[in-house]
């Protein structure tokens, strides 16, 4: 179809990262994300970039797939950089263009925040690329199970999240079909002023909502028919096992975080 959403689509492969227990994977990723957001020195950035470059190879996910899932946020990152460049006024002035002064601090912030974000996105998208919605749901389920003890629907939240991931491509295909059909009937998506364009989106949203409701209807029928009654009493085809692989992952993550911290201390 004309427009495809590739964010967060599972990429089937056999790799140490795919086979990692999803809970451990999530926790390691979280630790790594925190570490990446604390990067401040150039040496740390280089090390962080090396880690982010090595991970897709380890996960046997083509770099192209990772980049595709990062792409939609590139515009956001560009804006972020631009704002930093213009508004951060620390350090020595580099260029002065009329009222605009670009400082060394601004330039460094522009690079730093963009790279931090980009690295974090790579790690985040790898989680989705290497973990199926069911695995994610089960992982969240176990991690959120304390919530169930205090009366919050931990398992259900996890299930809803995983079904959402599952239906993203289906609804994206339908949205593109609706847009095609309506633009052939004179729907103005790429012409006219902003008001006209926004107004043109309304029928698309209505049609998409109707189709979302239809899917919800079908899905609830399917869940009932397959005896889904919430998390209690469910068993698992892939029994989560915490073994040497998970231990190794935790150790490797700890080492990487320590390395980044060390580089920061040295710089």
């Amino acid at each position, binding site marked *: 179809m*004309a427009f495809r959403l590739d964010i967060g*689509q*599972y990429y*089937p492969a056999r790799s140490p990262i795919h086979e990692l227990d999803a809970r451990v994977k999530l926790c390691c990723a979280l630790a790594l994300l925190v570490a990446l957001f604390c990067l401040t020195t150039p040496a740390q950035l280089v090390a962080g970039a090396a880690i982010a470059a090595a991970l897709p190879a380890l996960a046997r996910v083509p770099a192209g797939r990772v980049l595709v899932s990062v792409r939609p946020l590139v515009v956001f990152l560009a804006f972020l950089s631009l704002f930093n460049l213009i508004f951060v006024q620390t350090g020595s002035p580099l260029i002065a263009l009329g009222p605009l002064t670009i400082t060394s601090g601004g330039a460094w912030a522009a690079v730093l925040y963009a790279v931090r974000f980009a690295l974090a996105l790579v790690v985040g998208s790898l989680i989705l690329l290497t973990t*199926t*919605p*069911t*695995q994610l749901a089960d992982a969240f389920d176990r991690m959120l199970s304390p919530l169930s003890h205090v009366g919050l629907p931990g398992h259900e939240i996890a299930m809803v999240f*995983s*079904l959402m*991931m*599952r239906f993203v*491509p*289906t609804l994206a295909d*339908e949205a593109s*079909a*609706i847009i*095609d*059909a*309506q633009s*052939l*009937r*004179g*729907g*103005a998506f790429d012409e006219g002023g902003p008001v006209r364009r926004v107004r043109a989106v309304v*029928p*698309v949203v*209505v*049609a998409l909502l*109707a*189709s979302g409701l*239809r*899917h919800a*209807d*079908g*899905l609830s*029928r*399917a*869940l*009932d*028919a*397959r*005896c*889904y*009654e919430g998390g209690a*009493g*469910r*068993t*698992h*085809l*892939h*029994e989560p096992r915490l073994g040497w692989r998970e231990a190794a992952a935790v150790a490797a993550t700890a080492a990487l975080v320590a390395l980044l911290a060390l580089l920061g201390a040295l710089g």
Partner: protein
Amino acid sequence: MTLAAENTRPVAAASSGVSDEPSPEAPVRLSHVVLVYEGGVRALDDVSLSVARGERLCVLGANGSGKSTLASVICGLLAPDEGSVELVGERVCVSGTPDLEAYRRARRRLGLVFQNPDDQIVTSVVEDDVAFGPENLGLPRQEIAARVARELHRVALDDYVHADPTRLSGGQKQRVAIAGALALEPAVLVLDEPGSLLDVRGRSAILRVMGRLAKAGTTLVHVTHFMDEALEADRVIVMDHGRVALEGTPEEVFSHKDAIRDLGLEVPFALRLSERLGLRPTCSEDDVVRQLCATQSTSSRTSRPAMQAPGATREPGSRQGASAEAPVVSVEHVSFSYGPRTRALNDVSLALEPGTSTAVIGQTGSGKSTLLRLLCTLEAPDEGRVLLTGRDVSTRAGRRAARAEVGYVMQHPERQLFAETVEKDVGFGPHNLRLPADEVSRRVTEALELVGLAEKRDASPFKLSGGQRRLCALAGVLAMKPHVLVLDEPTAGLDPRGRAMLRRVLSRLREQGITLVQVTHSMEDAARADRVVVLNKSRVVAEGTPREVFSRGSEGRLASAGLGVPRSLRVARTLEDRGFAPLGEPVTTDELVAAIEAHSAKAGLGRDESARSNRHEGT
């Protein structure tokens, strides 16, 4: 698995106060079931039914006849308002009072597969999806793994264990759904129109799986729109307005042919054919052939019918020689690809004359839908060019101008309806063209009259029947007054009445001089078109009149493209193969009947010459 059922049996019997034990021989028993939807629609109206263990029951009925509701009641997803239901030995509903615990237990032994495969798949790995049901049952890991392997093997998807279901074809997805239902080891498997959104290949694969299940003794309840699928059943019931209108073996049910037609259904092809030929009525195509061979006299075997097979198919790309008019659509050496690797279309050339109808056939993935997208200006070719009424559509300006000429009816266009009334939905296009209000209204009236929905103008499009919803979507395209109408599988998923309505509208449009292009999976629909284009692996492999394309000479080419021939032609060829005189190339039922009648008229003249007929033992 049986544990739950056994434990509760005494409780159920005590609570109902009925002495007879729930019989395990009939896993489904409905008595005087009434189910009323909001707004007072009686979806089921005093239905009594029992399904025996190992039985294959087929449920037929037009849209809105209550057959899907019946399927939901049978698989324990809907409780009736009145009447009693007993499922797999559980009295789940007694005189309109549901026992929710009993329902829960019963559901664990019932399986359901329904229309839309996308809605039934809950995760991104085939294996995990099949495991979902057994996981919910709380089975041990080894047992789940064993069931997953067994069921995936049963539906012939062993090679797709780790595949992503969203990337499979519709038929494969539906087989995943069947495996997922079977992994529950259901006592009854309910299939609610499992093939209605699939292509012919997908549907026949599902039927093969069902045949294997029936042979293995699985109790099947199969709801369908396709009459020919009912022939395999042990018993057929026909629903109408929530009631069981007809019931019996397939032969018995279809023998009420007038009633069947009044209920908005059709009789199977073989039965229709045997009737028109004045043979003993039969539902089996093979029996028709045998009867015809039996009536054949030896003398006639040498006679030749008037109709002769025409020459071989024209080579792809060649134009029709004697065309006086300039083509309204011409596709010249067009190639197109979505990504860097594979080509969706490769050097495709076509020319469509004004006012003709063209059918595009080919397997899923052959490039049919891409061709349609190019024809209606949604894509521009990478190489070559597409001309619509003389305008080149590779430029943005050309596309915009050409959009006024072409209408595109996508697959399942009714899913795109959005307005609160039919009038507003149909008027969406003219309104966007900023036509004056009276012109918009005039166009809406015209379009609605064309499709026969004039009296539904103020209704909500969501309240229409399936066939009417599709016609409403079609009217929305017609209100743009296109000269060329491009349709992607216009009859897919409709019941016989809806299919017939749509075919009538299409032939009316042709009479009005609109050029029609449709992608179809039905060879019978293709045979009704003026021209047929066969796509295989991104290329045009055959093009011509139906008779040329389906000729004996190009059978191999069709087979390699994964396609068959219209059933009339299939019958004619089977007859020839069994020694019946050649019948030419009858691509429609009318032509087949005419050819056979012409032949028997001749045979009648020469009958006295041959005393020894009936060499093939018929009857």
